[in-house]
């Protein structure tokens, strides 16, 4: 796959996957918290946004 320095690419592919997963979980956490939290304060603050994104609300 990688065009340069095969050895480095091989060792770093696992780390690459780990780092991408970490960033992905961060994204899930952020979106989930704002869009899905049942905390009333979060719900009220993001109310218009949640409706405008068609997140299940109320």
């Amino acid at each position, binding site marked *: 796959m990688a065009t340069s320095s095969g050895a480095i690419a091989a060792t770093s592919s696992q780390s690459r996957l780990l780092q991408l997963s970490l960033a992905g979980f961060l994204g899930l956490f952020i979106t989930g918290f704002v869009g899905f939290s049942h905390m009333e304060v979060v719900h009220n603050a993001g109310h218009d946004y949640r409706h405008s994104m068609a997140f299940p*609300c109320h």
Partner: protein
Amino acid sequence: MTIFRNVVFVAALAGLLAGLVMTAMQVAFTVPLILQAEAYEGTGEEGAAAEESHDHGAAGHSHGDEAWMPADGLERTLYTALAAIVTGIGFSLLLVVGSELVGGIAGWRQGLFWGFAGFSVFTLAPGLGLPPELPGMPAADLFARQAWWIGVVIATAGGLALIALTRSAALAALGAVLIVLPHVIGAPQPESHDTLVPAHLHHSFVVAVTVTNLVFWLALGAMVGVLRPRFAQGLGEPQSSLA
């Protein structure tokens, strides 16, 4: 952690810009319809009807009751903007990570395709079973709807990935089945759809939500495509398997 840093940086910048676009569109197009619908909410018999058809439990919906909520006007708009930008960055992270897993977005044009995929996964597919709701409209149990929403998003994303990223007809067929399946199961629906919110208002809202989300996702995808090459150290050369 170079990759993590670059991914977060590209995603944050693209999400911030697309979130600002989203805020402007929401303020212009969707929020006025929400405010109109709120005039029908909790008036007359609708409150009682809503109580029968919703089952919120103790920590349910709370317009006007004890919990803090932003004051109407500027404060409310600022919180809408905050939610749009924060979530824009969240969606942006998911888009960047998803695309990096299969080689990265090569430019704005490919970004538009990825943006359209994001729109299909997060707006179009959930919206078929659970159309955007205005305040004051009856809906099924919140947990059930959230569970269906998450299920349809995962199934649609998986289905699209099988269709777009594999070369096998059998896997593509499986992808199509995955996309259709949540709609065969069906989204949780309220016992009654009766509401005082006029149908034309709801129709306008569905159109406004769908179109604003489309623009958000296209802007986000294109922005990621433009920004990525500038922060691509460690991300590798894009592989143009798409577009």
